[in-house]
């Protein structure tokens, strides 16, 4: 009787193929299909845990673990694999050396920066010659959203005028952080459309950031770099509150609050 043995891809090769498939899958999905590249730092983190997960699946039974380990053992112990062993033992350290060299060698590339998007606000802030308690400070015009919608629309429009005159050059006419000057700035201006910016913040926080700008950033976790002007020198308190109304209205976000609508 002739036994027909189903040929199966060796377990070790399966593992390597799965890992490579996921790695290139990430690059294909993000860099090519979505057009938004996946940062190297994040891809490294992702792959570390992907490999952990794949290893877990491949080793949770004894049989599978043995299948995975046997070729590695054979490579080290089997006298007939001497040539292959020598090749692997030369290539692996060379690859490790190449990786280490390329990671540590000096380049003209500026070092990566870990920027905190939301610096923590002080509890009280000085602006317009007085002190504001950020925990209790509220937008005086927010109430008109319900009480007098017509007046609210008018205020939003006035805020829009302020925005076009002063803010859109950097933050963009779509509020997406891509104004005409944005390319020249590092860090780039904030994208208010992003769900992680003003949508996460109370209006008092936004008031603080506009009024005191880059120089008003807190001492903790300094040095901050920001080219945001100190708008209290150019705008009135009312104008800042109106422009805040406009920011939320245009983007469709709601300011962070603790009260239900």
């Amino acid at each position, binding site marked *: 009787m002739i036994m027909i043995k189903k040929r199966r891809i060796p377990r070790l090769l399966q593992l390597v193929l799965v890992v490579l498939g996921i790695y290139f899958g990430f690059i294909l999905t*993000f860099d090519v299909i*979505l057009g*938004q*590249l*996946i*940062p*190297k*730092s*994040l891809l490294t*983190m992702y792959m570390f*845990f*992907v490999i*952990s*997960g*794949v290893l*877990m*699946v491949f080793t*949770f*039974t*004894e049989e599978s*673990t043995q299948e995975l380990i046997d070729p590695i053992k054979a490579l080290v112990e089997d006298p007939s694999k001497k040539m292959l062993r020598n090749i692997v033992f030369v290539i692996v350290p060379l690859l490790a050396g190449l990786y280490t060299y390329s990671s540590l060698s000096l380049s003209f*590339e*500026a070092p*990566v*920066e*870990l*920027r*905190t*998007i*939301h*610096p*923590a606000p*002080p*509890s009280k802030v000085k602006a317009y010659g007085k002190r504001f308690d*950020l*925990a209790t400070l509220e937008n005086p015009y927010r109430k008109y959203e319900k009480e007098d919608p017509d007046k609210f629309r008018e205020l939003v429009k006035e805020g829009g005028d302020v925005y076009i005159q002063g803010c859109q050059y950097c933050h963009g006419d779509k509020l997406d*952080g*891509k104004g005409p000057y*944005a390319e020249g700035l*590092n*860090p*780039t201006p904030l*994208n208010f459309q*992003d*769900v*992680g910016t003003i*949508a*996460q913040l*109370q209006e*008092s*926080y936004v008031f603080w950031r506009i009024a005191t700008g880059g120089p008003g950033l807190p001492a*903790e*976790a300094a040095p901050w770099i920001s080219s945001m002007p100190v708008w209290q020198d150019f705008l009135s308190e009312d104008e800042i509150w109106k422009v805040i109304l406009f920011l939320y209205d245009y983007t469709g976000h*709601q*300011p*962070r*609050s*603790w*009260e239900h*609508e």
Partner: protein
Amino acid sequence: MQKRNSRIIIGAFFIAAFALFLLPSLVPGIDASLAFADEAAVASDADAITYAPAPKLTAADYPTIPGVNSRVVVWIVAQLHLWFGAFVLAVPIFVFIIEVIGMSTRDQRYDNMAYEFIKISITAFSLTAILGGLLVFCLILFYPDLFNYLATIFKGSMFAYALLFFVESAVLYVYYYGWHWLQGGFKKWVHLTLGLLLNASGLLLMFLANAWTTFMMSPSAVDAAGVFSGDTWAAIHNFLWNPINIHRTIANVAYGGSIVGAYAAFKFLSARNKEQRAHYDWMGYNANFIAIAALLPLPFAGYYLTAEMYVYSQQMGITLMGGVFAWIFIIQAVLIGALFLSANYYLWCGMGRSEGAHRYYPYIKYIAIVIVVSFLVWFTPHTLVLTNAELKSLGGPYHAVLGPLGIMPAKNTAVNLLILFTFLSFMFYRRANKIATVPWAAKGNAIQIALFTTGIINIFILGTYYGYYTNTVYKVAASIPQVLTTLVIIAISVAIDAFMYKGAKEVAPLRWGRVPARSQYALFLLAVSFTWLMGLMGYVRSGIRQHWHVTNIFRDNSPDAFTPGLGYAANVISIATIIFMAMVMFVFWLSTISSHKSKTAGYWKEQGT
């Protein structure tokens, strides 16, 4: 003789109970009329105590010892004390539960295991006390004005704490040394009651100590100058006290389970025969079960605590999640993910105990995919680390696809899925060696599949619609129905399984001890990850006060009043973790030498009869 002992033990029990219930009356202000008083309740004029404002210190007011970094010393000692404290508080909680299980099932293995657990904690108990004493010395030595300020406000509760510590010790020793004596019938009930009393006193101790810590974060009944104008209860019942109490109680149980799991793994790997391996395998499984059962609700308790911090202070919340500490939260996410991964891996390896589990093997890879994908979402940072070339290519620091994964709605959704699929691993494990024989088994399975499917859809809708298209109130609030969905799925599935597998047919025996050694390393990883995680997050909890000893009222003007860099902080915590693990290994080793006996032929003089 036995009768006399019973009388002594009952007497000791009543004294302990009396002391425990008497203690609250020693704490000024804790009585029924004041218990629900407003935080800022002012003591009556008659017995009003005038408190001094918070001192304004200079660097010269902080005593120093050449060559000693006072902050690092206090930091490490406090952390070690907390780790041991968490362990010795947690062990009696699940020892009590296991003892109850043993008592109700009359399965002595549970009783023996509970005894072995409490035996491990005995040495750790004295180490906790020693480290607590050392911490007080360090605080008095290096931060005398801070200690004095807090002690003035908390003198009542500190005194109660000291007394309560004696009560707890007394109960613990009777509970432990009386274990084999208080067996059977009424005596077992007495022993169980002692266990309850031990837990009550232990938790009360922790709650009191929590109050001192949370007062430093969210002081109550104080004015801007730090003048305290309330009573002890007002100081204890500060804004963050209860959220911390809940979080720490649950976390302690998970942590205690993981440490005991590491002990079982240590004993399993050093076992010399089949019986020992089987015993410690079973023990490790139960410890892991405890750790995971408590780990499942932990992310919710943590989320509640963080949300409360945000409510208390926007500054504190942003410092925590969006500011300087945000990257520690990424490390935290990675470690929590590592906990889930190792817990799942342990369960999958454990399926090898029974041949019946083979039918579930094909599903494991799908569970792994969901767990890893959820995990990747769980730790995707909001602020990406980008090279200049990447920054240029993306047109700014905002990633259109990954950016939304950086905020809480995505993470809440991911963690709920992590929990659900970990639970699914557990369900498969439980079914490994059995086949349901009830006629409605197919329907039962269908209901469970429907439950999981609708639940997951609900979690997704809550996470995406409410998480991204409504205001922050709903974003935060949506996490509650998400959690409830997960809990409902778990509760109903457990109930269905309980009925469906009643009298189920065993397809293959469960062979305890037949697990690979690498599964035991998963238990070690669990314990180390927990320890490191607690250290890091403990640093964050304390660090968000930044340059304040007591937030906004008592400034830290010591030379160390700066927020250390992430690398520095991580190094301190890592060193503390290594010290703690070394001490834990010492405790484990002690438990092994107590059973060793050396043969000393010819050493002792023969005694004539």
